Structures are given as structure tokens and as C-alpha cells.
């Protein structure tokens, strides 16, 4: 019987003699296989997903947002009331089996209005992110791709726009354009794309550098592999994170503007409008009118923020081990 290696590894000269002479024959190396690192190398996106999944707070945010999206679509149909239905006999009713979240001072169902507000918030947030993305990719892409003088001029414009006080410009535009859903989105995106353009430009410059590397043929990897392994992870990561974090900014801006009376107009509901209407309840004690919009706006922003943070950690190639 062969001695166990554990025992033999306790280095003593006596043990040396226990090692069978037979072991001193050359070892058959089965070449490449053994040298490679044992842990499986996963694709970038799969790896990112695994890391995101292990981030419980970010996953909780994601699940909350999925549920919220579901309720935003179907929530208003779960009750017999519409957003603007006023049951004047049932003013300021506390939550009950008839009115799950209670009613407001005009007898409107807070439950229905809350999910209607979710629609508005999610719509504004996602539209703003998408439009920012579209303009940012176009502008930043051209700026970074053309380079030189064009880039210089285009970036100066961005610099000036970046210096403009965002919410003030938005307020001014809304005063002029008149408050509505589309003008809110327009006002939010008219200066909002600047941040995205900067990021995209940076990424495009990086892409150009990758092409240099490729042109000089300094490494023999295939183009498709470079794009898949290096380019997409490096460029898409920051863009996705920026988009995720644009959404709560836009949601906040919409609520803020609605709160100031510059947003969605009655009888339609937005969380900002509902919170504004509920200001008087501070004294009257009709807490449900403030609580539901306030809770959902905070929870939604929280969910987007933690999801964005989680994505940032999951997608950052620097953190890959």
C-alpha cells in the first residue's frame, strides 16, 4: 500500500525512505489542461448577473420595481373607481374594505390614484432615461467619433449646458409651455441628456483606442471576441448605470414640479400632486392621503437607487476578480 501524502509532507528525513522509488519516474504531463485556472470563466453578463443576484438589497429593489410596474398597469382596474371619480359622500374616508387606501377631500379613491401616479412616475422616469439615452448616444457618439475640432466645439456646448441650473430651466420652460405630461418630459430631457452625452463620448473614445490596439495587431484575438469581452462590458456598463440613475432623478423632478403646481394637472393624479393636495392633512390627521404617495415615491426612488448601485458594482469590470 502506498503511504498517504499527508503524512509524507511532514518533512523529516525518516519519511523520505517511505516514499516508493517508483514515484521517481518522470511524470506524464497532460499538457495544457492542467495549467489553466480551474475556476470556470463566465461570460461578462452572466458574471454580472450572478453578482447582482447576490446583492440582496439591489434584488429587493428590482423585485419591488417589477411589482410596481405590474400594479401601475393593472392597479387602477382593481377598483370600481376611476382616477377622477368623486364620491362626495365619502370624503376623507380612512382605509377600509371599500377604499383600500382611503379617499381624499373630494372623495376620490387613493388606491386607484396611487397606481395611476405610479404610471405617471414610471412613464416619466423611463421616457426621460430613454430620450436622454438616444440624444446622448447620438451627440456623444458623433463628438467622440469625429474628434478634433468638432469634438472640441461640441464639448464646449455641453460644458455651457452643464453650467445651466437644471431645475430652474425646467421651471422656466414649463411656465412657458404649460404643464402637461409631454412638456414635463420635454423640459426634463432638454438639458438632461448632457450627462449621458459626456459618458457616451468617453466610451466612444475608448472604443477608438481599442481599434488602435486592433490595427496594430498587438494581440491576436478575434474582433468579435474583443467586442464581446472588452468593448461591450466597458462601454455598456456605465451607460446602463447612468440610465438607471436618471430614472429616479426624473421621478423626483416630476413630483417636485407637480408639487409646485407645474406638473400633471387635476383631476389626473401624480404622486407629487397627491402629496401637494395632502399638505393640509398635516393638521387634519388624514394621514393616508399623504402616506401612500409619499411612501411610494420614496420607495420607488430607493429601489431605483439601490438597483443602480447594485448594477454599478456588478458591471464594473475593475471589480471582476
Amino acid at each position, binding site marked *: 500500500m502506498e503511504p498517504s501524502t499527508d503524512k509524507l509532507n511532514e518533512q523529516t528525513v525518516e519519511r523520505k525512505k517511505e516514499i516508493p522509488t517508483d514515484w521517481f519516474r518522470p511524470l506524464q504531463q497532460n499538457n495544457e489542461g492542467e495549467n489553466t485556472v480551474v475556476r470556470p470563466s463566465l461570460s461578462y453578463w452572466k458574471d454580472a448577473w450572478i453578482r447582482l443576484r447576490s446583492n440582496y438589497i439591489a434584488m429587493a429593489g428590482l423585485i419591488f420595481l417589477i411589482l410596481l410596474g405590474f400594479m401601475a398597469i393593472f392597479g387602477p382596474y382593481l377598483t370600481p373607481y376611476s382616477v377622477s371619480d368623486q364620491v362626495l359622500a365619502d370624503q376623507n374616508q380612512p382605509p377600509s374594505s371599500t377604499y383600500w387606501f382611503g379617499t381624499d377631500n373630494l372623495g376620490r379613491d387613493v388606491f386607484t390614484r396611487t397606481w395611476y401616479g405610479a404610471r405617471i412616475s414610471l412613464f416619466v422616469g423611463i421616457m426621460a432615461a430613454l430620450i436622454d439615452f438616444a440624444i446622448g448616444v447620438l451627440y456623444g457618439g458623433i463628438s467622440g467619433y469625429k474628434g478634433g475640432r468638432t469634438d472640441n466645439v461640441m464639448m464646449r456646448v455641453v*460644458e*455651457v449646458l452643464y*453650467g*445651466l*441650473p*437644471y*431645475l*430652474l*430651466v425646467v*421651471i*422656466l*420652460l414649463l*411656465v*412657458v409651455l404649460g404643464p402637461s405630461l409631454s412638456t414635463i418630459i420635454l423640459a426634463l430631457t432638454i438639458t438632461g441628456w448632457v450627462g449621458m452625452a459626456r459618458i457616451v463620448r468617453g466610451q466612444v473614445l475608448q472604443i477608438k483606442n481599442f481599434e488602435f490596439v486592433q490595427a496594430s495587431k498587438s494581440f491576436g484575438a478575434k474582433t468579435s471576441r474583443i467586442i464581446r469581452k472588452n468593448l461591450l462590458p466597458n462601454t455598456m456598463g456605465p451607460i446602463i448605470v447612468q440610465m438607471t440613475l436618471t430614472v*429616479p432623478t426624473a421621478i*423626483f423632478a416630476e*413630483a*417636485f414640479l407637480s*408639487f*409646485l*403646481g*407645474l406638473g400633471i394637472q387635476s383631476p389626473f393624479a401624480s404622486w407629487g400632486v397627491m*402629496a401637494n393636495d*395632502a*399638505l393640509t392633512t*398635516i*393638521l387634519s390627521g388624514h*394621514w393616508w392621503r*399623504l402616506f401612500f404617495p*409619499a411612501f411610494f*415615491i*420614496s*420607495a420607488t*426612488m*430607493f429601489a431605483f*437607487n*439601490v438597483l443602480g*448601485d447594485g448594477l454599478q458594482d456588478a458591471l464594473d469590470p475593475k471589480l471582476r476578480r
Partner: protein
Amino acid sequence: MIRYIFKRFLMMILTIWIIATLTFVLMNAIPGSPFNEERTSNEAVQENLERHFNLDEPPIVQYFAYLKSIVTFDFGPSIKKPNDTVNDLLARGFPISAELGIISIVVALFSGIALGVIAALRHNGFIDYLAMTIAVLGISIPNFVLATLLIQQLAVNTGIFPVATWQSPMHMILPTLALATGPMAIIARLTRSSMLEVLTQDYIKMARAKGLSPTKVVIKHALKNALMPVVTILGTLLAGILTGTFVIEKIFAIPGMGRYFVESINQRDYPVIMGTTVFYSAFLVFALFLVDIAYGILDPRIKLHKEERG
């Protein structure tokens, strides 16, 4: 350095000019503004408006007169408050808003930096998680929601603090808290991440290799470098605080500039909207300019960089 300041200064003037022009063009486009045919009911007000905005002259003359009024800091009359000019409102409201804003930003800076540094030093520890949870909450809860919650819980329900207005230090606590929490959270997160980054730098290891105490390493070597990014976002934070005063002053019934501005929006008092927007913008752009210069002074590398280029 002088070149750098000069360049930034030109940029500032350009930005203010763009905002002023944008405001003028937009105001010309809407009904109900002093530039349109529509008349106000009050004869005296109408006369003031015509005089101030040169309404009988062609638009281009109006434009230059308007630019001149901005340079000379004369923003014209209010439509809805016949006895006040925009300058009167600014003189009355701005000091109060400035007081609220300055207290808030100081509170936000100190508490945010402290929270961020502690979180970074206890990286991945309980305090880190706690501080960052507070920070994400601070970013996620809109200031107007926080303000109403604070009033409801701490003023109405328990009566610890007065409900509204701006009189004694006790009156100032809740509005400041509501306004400072968001910026504080942003500062805390930024400080933490940049502190973590700085702490991995070789010069920190080098400082430790000299046998310096941990406190000395953190304060003398890490903190200044870690706070550089915080300085760069001061301008943005200030803008956030400023727009925050609109809602906070509305909720707490504080007679500041923000409340006049919100009133003017709701009443469509265009000269006030115009004047205040331009004033606020100029103020913010100037603040950004100061931040840029401060950054140039704090970071010794900037100076050389610019000199080399020039």
C-alpha cells in the same frame, strides 16, 4: 492661474447671457407676459411695465434695454404686487433664503463628510452599512416629503418644534433638516467612495510606513485628497439646495425668495419669474465659478497644468 480664472470668468458671463436671452425669448413667446399685447387690468402697473420694458419700441431695442436692466440689477415691477418691484422682493426674501441655504449647506457638508469618512474607515462593517443605508434613504426621500413628515411627527404630533415660519433657532431646525438631508446623503456617499479609493493609494501606505498614527494618516494624508471630488459637486449641490428652498419655504411658510418665486409661478407674475430666474441663475453660475477657482487653489496640480498649456 490667472489665465484659468479669466477663461472661467468668460464662461460664466457667457452662461449668464445665454440664460438671460433664453428667458427673454421664452417670455416673448407666451401670452400674458408683459411683452404680449394682452393688457393688465391695473393702469398704474401697465404704465410701469411699459416704461421698464420699453414696450413701445421694437423687440431688438427691448432686448438691449432688458440686458441693460440685468447688468444694472434692475428687474422691473411685479404685476400682481403693484407696490413692489422685483428688487423689493429680492431684498426682502433673499436674506432669509440665503440664511436657510447657508445653514443647510454647512450642516450637509459637515455631517455628510463625517458620515462618509466613518463609513470608509469601517468599510464593510456594521457602521458602514448603517451609514450607507441612511444615505440611500436620504437620497430617495424627496425633500418635500421629508418636510411634511417632519412637521407631522415632530411639530404637530409631539409639539417639540414650532410648525412653521422663520423666527427663532428652534424654527430653523426642521426646515434645515428637511433641506440638508438630501445633499448630506450625496456628500456622504461621494466622500465614502473617494475615501475608499484614496485609502488604497501608495502614498497612504507610505504615510503608514513612516510610523504616523492612524488619525494623522487619515486627516493629513487621506482627507484632503478624498474631498477633492466633493468640492467639484458643490455647485450642483448648491443648485439643489436653492431649488429645494422653493418647496421648503412653501411648506414651512418661510417668507423667503423661494416662496415669492413659487407664488409668482402660480400667479403667472412674469416679471418676477423672469427677474428671479435670471438672478438665481447668475447666482448659481457665479457659485460654480468660485468652486472652480477654489478647486484650482486646493489642488496644486491644476496650476501647473494650466500654466503649461498657456
